[in-house]
C-alpha cells in the first residue's frame, strides 16, 4: 500500500516541497544543483556508516555489513543516502514529501541494480502506519520542516527500542548565514537562491533540546567542515559552527 503525504499535517510545508520537485531531475548530476550535497556525501557517509557500525556492532569490511537492518531515509531526495545504505545490505525505505523525487530515485536505483522502497510520504505517515526502524536518517531535512518538535516526535515513534537517529542540519549564527546563504546560494551559486531560510536554522543546543523532548537520548555530535583550500569536507570534533550532525539512541 502506497502512503501519500497528508497535506494538513504539522510537518508538511507546501512551498518547500514544490521547490524540490523543480530540482528532482538534477539529483544525480555531481556537478548540478546538488553539487554541495555530492561533495558532502563521502563525509556524511563516513559518519553515518561508522555510527551504525558502532551501534549495531557491524564490521564495515564485510561485504554486506548492514544486512538485517531496517533503515529509513527521510527526505531521501534522489537517493544519495538510500543507495549506499542498500549497497551495504540494509532494507531501505526512502521517504520524500516531494512526489517528483520518487521516480528519479526509483529509476536510478534500478539502473544501479538496487532494491529500495521509495515512498512519497512524510515521516509521520509512516509513524501512523506503525512502521519501525533500526536506523532513521534525518539528514539536512529538519531545517526544511514546519514544526521540528512534531517532526522529531514522529521520529521517536519510528525507532525500534535501541534504534539510532542520525540528524544533521545547519547552525544559526552569523557565520552560517555567510557560508550557507551568502556563500553557497549567492556567490558560488551551488544552491538555488531561497533553498534555505536562515531563520529555520537550528543551533546544536536547540536541536539537542528538541531531541531530548522527543525522549531520544543524544549520544554524539560532530561538525562537517568545508576546507576551501583542499576543496573538501571533513568531520570535526569541535567546529559545529555551520554544518553539524548528531547521533541519538532510543533507549526505550
Amino acid at each position, binding site marked *: 500500500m502506497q502512503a501519500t503525504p497528508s497535506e494538513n499535517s504539522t510537518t508538511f510545508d507546501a512551498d518547500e516541497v514544490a521547490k524540490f520537485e523543480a530540482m528532482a531531475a538534477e539529483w544525480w548530476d*555531481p556537478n548540478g544543483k546538488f553539487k554541495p550535497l*555530492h561533495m558532502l*556525501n*563521502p563525509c556524511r*557517509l*563516513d559518519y553515518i*556508516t561508522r555510527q551504525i557500525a558502532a551501534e549495531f556492532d557491524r564490521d*564495515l*569490511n*564485510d*561485504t554486506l555489513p548492514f544486512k538485517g537492518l531496517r533503515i529509513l531515509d527521510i527526505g531521501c531526495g534522489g537517493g544519495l543516502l538510500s*543507495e*549506499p*545504505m*542498500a*549497497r*551495504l545490505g540494509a532494507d531501505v525505505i526512502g521517504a520524500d514529501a516531494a512526489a517528483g523525487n520518487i521516480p528519479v530515485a526509483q529509476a536510478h536505483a534500478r*539502473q*544501479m*541494480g*538496487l*532494491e529500495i522502497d521509495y515512498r512519497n510520504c512524510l515521516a509521520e505517515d509512516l509513524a501512523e502506519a506503525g512502521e519501525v526502524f533500526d536506523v532513521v536518517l534525518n539528514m539536512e531535512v529538519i531545517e526544511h520542516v514546519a514544526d521540528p518538535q512534531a517532526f522529531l516526535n514522529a521520529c521517536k515513534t519510528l525507532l525500534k527500542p535501541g534504534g539510532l537517529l542520525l540528524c544533521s542540519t545547519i547552525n544559526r549564527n552569523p557565520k552560517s548565514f555567510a557560508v550557507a546563504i551568502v556563500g553557497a546560494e549567492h556567490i558560488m551559486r551551488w544552491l538555488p537562491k531561497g533553498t534555505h531560510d536562515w531563520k529555520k536554522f537550528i543551533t546544536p543546543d536547540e536541536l539537542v533540546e528538541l531531541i531530548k523532548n522527543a525522549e531520544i537520548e543524544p549520544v554524539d555530535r560532530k561538525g562537517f567542515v568545508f576546507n576551501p583550500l583542499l576543496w573538501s569536507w571533513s568531520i570535526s570534533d569541535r567546529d559545529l559552527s555551520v554544518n553539524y550532525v548528531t547521533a541519538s539512541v532510543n533507549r526505550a
Partner: protein
Amino acid sequence: MDNPRTVTIVGFMTCDSDILIAGGGLNGPSLALALADGGLNVTLVDAAPDGARETQGFDGRCYALALASQRLFQAIGVWPLLDGNAQPILNVKVTDGRAGEGPGPFVMGFDHAEIEEGPTGYMVEDRFISGALREAVERHPLITKISDAKAISQQVDGAIVTVGLDDGTSHTTRLLVGADGRGSGVASRAGIKRNGHSYHQTAVVCSVAHEKPHNATAHQFFMPDGPLAILPLPGDHSSIVWSTSDDTAARLAGLSDDDFMEELRPVFGDFLGDISLSGVRLTYPLSLSLAEHFVKDRLALVGDAAHGVHPVAGQGLNLGLRDVGALAEVVIEARRRGEDFAAVDVLARYEQWRRWDTTVMSAGMDGVVRLFSNDNPILRAARGMGLGIVNALPTLRRNFIREAAGLTGDLPKLMQGRQI
C-alpha cells in the same frame, strides 16, 4: 584451465567480479592483491602464460624499488616472498661523465643514513617480483586469474561492464582497470587519447659481474648520449641501464658480447675492478606517453597505461605502485561507505590524487634527461655546479634522498606501511 568464478550480488544484479584488471605485469597483480585484501572480488587477466614472467629472459629488467614501494609490497604480503632476492641500496652517487673518459669527478652523493627511514630502496629483478606476485595472487581466495588471455572488447551498460577476452569468454564486472601498459587497449577502446613523444633514446639493459664489492651503492653517470645507471644486485653483480641514442643502441645490439663489453668498459670505468657480462642483453626504446584521462565512468588506468615515463631513476614502477596504492584506497574506502565505487565522481578522486604528481614527475625527468643528455661545455659546467650545490646543502640533499625513496607527496596508506 581452472577458473572458479566468483559471484558478487548486490540487490538483484550479479557480476562475475567487482573489479576486472586487464594486465598481468607488476601493477596489475599488485592492485589485485590490494583490492582483494579490502574484501573485493577481483578477476586478473594476464596476456602471458602462467609462470612465463618468471623465466629468465622474459623481462631482464631490474627495478629500483623505492622505500615507499617496498612498504606497499610489505602491506600486500608480497615482500616476504621476495626479500631474499632484494639488494638494499644504501648509497646513491650521481656523477657527470663523458664518453671515453669514464666517470667524471664525484659531484653528488646520497647516504641512507641521512634519512631516518632506512635504505633508500631495493634492487630486485623483474622475475623475482613476478614470481612473488604470482604466488601471492594464487593464494588469495578473492582473486581469479586468467592467464594467456587478452581483453579485446568492453561495453558499459548502466553499472555493469562486460569485458570480452580473446579466448572467446566474456566477463561482467563493476569496474574495469587498464594495467595494460603504454599501448593500453583498455584506454584506446574507451577513446582516451595519449600525449607523448619519443626521446630518440634506447635503454640497453644487462647485468654484469664485477671483481670488487659494490658496497650497496647505486651510481648514475650522466653521459652526453644519455644516463648510465649501475645498480647493485645481490652478490658481486650490478644491473646496468645504459640509455643512449637510438643509433648507438642499434649498433651496440649488433655487437657480439665481447665487443659489447669492450664498449661498456670505458664508460663503466674500473672502480669495481674487471667486469664481465652476466645473462642476456635487452633493449627498450624510451618514450613519454601520458593518457589524457586516467578515469572514465566504470574505468580506471594505472601504471604505464596512465603514464609511461622515461625510466631514468627507475621511477616508472614506483609511480605505478603509487597509482595502485591510491586507487585501492579510493575504491575500498568508497565501498565501505556504500558509494558506487566505479562512478566517475568517485574515480575522479583517484585521478586528482595522481595526475599532478605524475605530471610533475614526468616533466621533471624530462628536464633532467634533456639537461644532462648533451655535450655542451657550458651546460656541463652548469651541471657540475648544480650537482655541487645540491651536494653542499644538507636540507636539499635530504629532500633529494626522500624523493628518491618515494617518501614525498601525498602518500597512499599502503605506502606508509598502513592498511587501508
